[in-house]
C-alpha cells in the first residue's frame, strides 16, 4: 500500500474517531449568489448542527452577483466558496491558486429559452434572434452552443432579471433550469409555451457548482477542508430527505438578508431544491466527484475560445477524491 493512501486512511480514521474539540474551528462560506435553495445543503448543515458535529463553526456569508468570491478567498473574508466549474477552471488557469474540494452539481442546468409564439421551436429557429446573455463565465458555454449549431444571434447583455424577456425586449434568454426557467413559468408562461434548449441535450453537459478554497487553505487545514466537504454533502442529503425543512431554512436566509432584498417564494425555492436534487444525485455518479473527462472537455472548450492559454493539471485542480460519497 502506498504511503499516501495509508496517510489518507489515517486521516479518515482520525477525523471520525476524534471527538469534536471543545473549541470548534471557525470558518466562513461564501456562496456565489444571493441566498436561495441553490445552497440549501450548506444551510441545512449549519442549521441542523451538521457542521458543529464535525467540529466546525461555519458562518454562511451573503453572496451576490457583485461579490468577488476570489477576492474574498484571498483577503480571508471567506475560507470556502461555491463556484461553477467553468468559473473555477478559468480562474485557476488565469493564475488564481484555488482548488476544487468537491464537485456538487454533476450536470448542467443551463438552457436557452424562447417563446413558441415567436416561431421558435427548433435550434435553427434561433438564428437571427436576439439572446439575453449574462456577463459571467457561462457566456463561453452560450458561445459554444451558438458556434456548434452554426447560429447567428444578437447578444444582449442582461443582469439576473428575466423581465426583459418577459416584456418582449429580447427573443431568447439564457436561463438555469432551477431558477430562471421557473421564474418565467411563474410569470404566466406555460411550459408548453416555451421552446427549451437544454444544454445537456447538446453535448454541453458540464458540471456546475463545486466547493472551492485557496490551495494554501487546503494544504494547511486539510482536515478542516475534509470536514467541511463531508458536512456539506451530508447537509445536502439532509436537505433532500427533509425538503420542507430545507425550504423553510432557505426562506429564513433569504428573508434575513442584510443587503438587497430578494423575492422569497416557497414555490420557487421548492422547485429549485427539487431541480438541484436531479443535478446533484445523478444516477450512479458519486456525490462530490469531478469527472476528469468532463474537466478536460471543459478545459479544451476554454482553450478553443482562447479564454485560457493552458489547462491546469486535474490533480492540481481537484482535491476532493477522498471525500467522494457513493
Amino acid at each position, binding site marked *: 500500500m502506498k504511503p499516501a493512501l495509508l496517510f489518507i486512511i489515517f486521516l479518515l480514521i482520525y477525523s471520525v474517531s476524534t471527538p469534536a474539540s471543545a473549541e470548534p474551528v471557525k470558518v466562513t462560506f461564501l456562496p456565489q449568489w444571493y441566498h436561495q435553495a441553490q445552497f440549501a445543503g450548506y444551510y441545512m448543515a449549519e442549521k441542523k448542527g451538521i457542521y458543529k458535529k464535525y467540529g466546525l463553526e461555519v458562518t454562511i456569508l451573503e453572496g451576490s452577483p457583485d461579490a468577488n468570491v476570489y477576492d474574498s478567498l484571498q483577503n480571508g473574508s471567506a475560507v470556502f466558496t461555491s463556484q461553477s466549474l467553468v468559473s473555477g477552471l478559468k480562474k485557476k488557469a488565469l493564475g488564481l491558486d484555488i482548488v476544487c474540494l468537491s464537485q456538487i452539481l454533476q450536470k448542467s442546468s443551463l438552457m436557452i429559452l424562447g417563446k413558441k409564439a415567436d416561431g421558435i421551436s427548433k435550434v435553427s429557429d434561433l438564428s437571427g434572434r*436576439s439572446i439575453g446573455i449574462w456577463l459571467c463565465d457561462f457566456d463561453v458555454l452560450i458561445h459554444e452552443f451558438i458556434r456548434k449549431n452554426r447560429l447567428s444571434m444578437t447578444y444582449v447583455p*442582461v443582469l439576473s432579471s428575466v*423581465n426583459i424577456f418577459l416584456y418582449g425586449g429580447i427573443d431568447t434568454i439564457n436561463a438555469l433550469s432551477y431558477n430562471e426557467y421557473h421564474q418565467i413559468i411563474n*410569470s404566466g408562461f406555460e411550459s408548453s409555451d416555451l421552446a427549451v434548449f437544454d444544454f445537456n441535450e447538446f453535448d454541453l453537459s458540464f458540471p456546475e457548482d463545486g466547493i472551492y478554497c485557496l490551495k494554501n487553505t487546503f494544504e494547511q487545514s486539510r482536515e478542516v477542508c475534509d470536514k467541511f466537504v463531508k458536512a456539506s454533502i451530508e447537509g445536502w442529503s439532509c436537505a433532500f430527505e427533509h425538503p420542507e425543512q430545507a425550504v423553510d431554512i432557505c426562506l429564513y436566509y433569504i428573508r434575513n438578508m442584510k443587503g438587497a*432584498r430578494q*423575492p422569497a*417564494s*416557497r*414555490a420557487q425555492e421548492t422547485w429549485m431544491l427539487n431541480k438541484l436534487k436531479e443535478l446533484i444525485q445523478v444516477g450512479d455518479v458519486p456525490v462530490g466527484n469531478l469527472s476528469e473527462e468532463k474537466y478536460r472537455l471543459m478545459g479544451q472548450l476554454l482553450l478553443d475560445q482562447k479564454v485560457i492559454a493552458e489547462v491546469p493539471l486535474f490533480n492540481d485542480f481537484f482535491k476532493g477524491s477522498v471525500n467522494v460519497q457513493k
Partner: protein
Amino acid sequence: MFKSKGLAFKLSFWILTGCLLLFFLLFWYNSRISEKLIIKYMRENASQLADAVSLKIESTLNPISRISENLAVYLEQSDHSREEISSFMHDLLVRNGDANGLCVMFEPGISTAAGSGFAPYFFRGDGAIEYVDISADYKTESLGEWYQIPRLLDKALWGEPYFDEDAHNQIICSYSTPFFRPVDGKKRFAGIVTVDVSLQWLESIVSKIQIFRSGYGMIVTRTGRIVTHPDKNLIMNESIFSLAEHLNEPELRALGKNMIAGQSGFARCFCGYLNAVSWFYHTPQSSTGWSLAIVIPEDELLADLRSLNKILILIALLGLITLLLMITSISRRITNPLCVLAQAAETIGQGNFNALLPVIKGHDEIAVCNESFKKMQVTLHEYIENLKKTTAAKEKIESDLRIAHEIQMGMVPKEFPPFPDKTEIDVFATIVPAKEVGGDLYDFFLIDDNTLCFAVGDVSGKGVPASLFMAVTISLLRAKAMPEMTASCIVAQVNRKLCEHNESLMFCTFFLGLLDLRTGKLQCCSAGHNPPYIKRADGSIEGLKFKPICALGISQDIVYEHHDLMLNPGDIITLYTDGVTEAENIDQHLYGEPRFEETLKMTCCNSAENTTRKILSTIKEFAGEAEQSDDITILTLFYTRNGE
C-alpha cells in the same frame, strides 16, 4: 314495501315525502337564483369600486410619468450643459413631491454638451434632494431592465417594481422614457430618462379597499408579481402564479393569466390568504399594465343568504313536523272509527247484529260511512230475521211436501211381485222422483180374478197441487174401476169426477189398460198420455199410438175411446211418463222416443223388474251429471199367460 303499514303511516309518508321534495326544489331554485343575483350585484359593486381605485392610481401615476416625458422632451429639444440639466432636474423633483428620484443616462457614444461620464441622479434623501452621478456604475446600470427594456422596445413604460437598497429597501417603480437626438440627419437613441416613485402610496390606496369583514384588494404587475397585498410577506416575494403553484390551485393560475393579459373578469378561486373560496374581480390598469384585483370571500358574500337558508330550513322542518302531527291526528281520526267499524263488521259477521258502532260527529265521509253502516246493520238484522222466518216457513213447507210425497208414494203399490199367485203376469213399476214433488202416478190392481187394471198418469204442474190431484186421480180410479166396465168408461168417469170442482184447472194425462189374464186381451184407453210400447216375444217393438184425446180434468164432455189388442205370452208392455223421453243430458239433448225404442229392443230380459231397471240405467247413463227435472215413471208388464 308498505303493504303491511297502516293508512296513517302511508298517508304521512307520501304527503311528507311530497312536501319535502317540493320544499327541496323551491329551496334549491331560490338559493341558486339568489346566489346568482348576489354575485351579479357584487360584481357590479366591485367593478365600481375597482374603477374608483384605478382612477386614483392613474391620477397619481400619470403626472409622475409626465415628469419623465417632459424631461425627455427637454433633452431632445436642445443640447444642454450639465448645469442646465441638473438645475432642470432639481426643479422638476422639487415641484413634484410624489416623485422619489429622477435620472438621466446617456447612451455611450452620443456626443452631448454635457460630455461623457455624466449620469445625473436626483433623489429625495433624508429631508432634502440629493444628487449622485451614477456614470461610474454605467456598466451595471445600463444592463438594468429600467434602461434595457424601453431602449429595446423603443417606448416609454412603467417597469417592474424593485426593492431599492439605497432607499431603505422601499418598493420603487420607475417610469423610463427613451429620448432621441438627431445624428447625421437621423433620429438616434440617445438615452433614458427615468422617474422613480415609491409604491407606499399605492399600498395605502389599495389597503383601504375593504369588502365585508375580510375582503381586500391587491395589485399584480404584468408578470403577475404581487405589489400590494394585506399579507406583507407576499409583496414582491410571490407572484399570483407561485401562489397558485404552492396552493396547487390551477384556477388561480388561470385567473393570473387573465389578469396579466389585461382582461377584466370575475372568477371564483381558492384564496390562500383567506383560506377560503373567494371571488376575484380584476381589472387592468391602463398606464402600468398592472391588474387590480378585489377579493371577496364567498362565505361572507353569501353569509346573509346562508343565514336565510338556515332559517328557511328551520321553518321547513317545523312545518314538516307540524304537518306530520296534523296528518297523524287526521289520519287517526279517520282510521280509528274505521278500525271500530272493522271490528264491528267482524262482530256482525260472527252473527252479533247488536254490536255497538262508534258515534261520529259531523257530516264527513266517515260519518256518512258510519251512518250507512248503521243502516246496513239494521237492514241486515231485519233481513236475517226475515230469513229466519222464511227459512222456518220453507222448512215447514218442505216438511209438508216431504210428507205429501210420502203419502203420494204410499198410494201407489210398492210391493213386488204384487200378485204372487198370478203367474200369468209379472208387473213392476217405479217412480223416480225429481227434487220437487211431482204429479206422476201409476197403479195396478185386479178388478176381478182375471182382469188386471193398470194405469200410468202425469198430472200437470208440480208440488202439492199436483200431488193432491194425483192422489185424487188414483182414488177415483180405484173407486170407479168396476168389473165389466170398459177402459174408456172408467177413464170417462174418472174424468168427469176430476172435472168437478177443478177450479184450478189442473189436468192429468192418463193411460189405462185392462188385461184379461186368461186370454191376453188388452183393452186400453189413453187420455193424452205418451203411447206405451209393446215388445213382442219376437223382439219387435210396437208403439200404441192412438188417436189423441184430451187429458183428464179438462172437460167433462170428452168422449174417450178404448182400443182392444192382444198380448201374447212373452210380450212386454211398457208404460211411462214424459219424464222418460224428455230426460235431458248436460247438452240439453232429449232422451227421446227413438232412443227409448232402441233401449227396449236391446233388453232381452224376461222380467218386468229387470226391464224397468235396464231402462232406468240407460236413462241415467244418458243424463249423466244433468239434474233430473221431472219425475220418471215406468210400469212394465210381462205377460206369460200361464206362467210360461
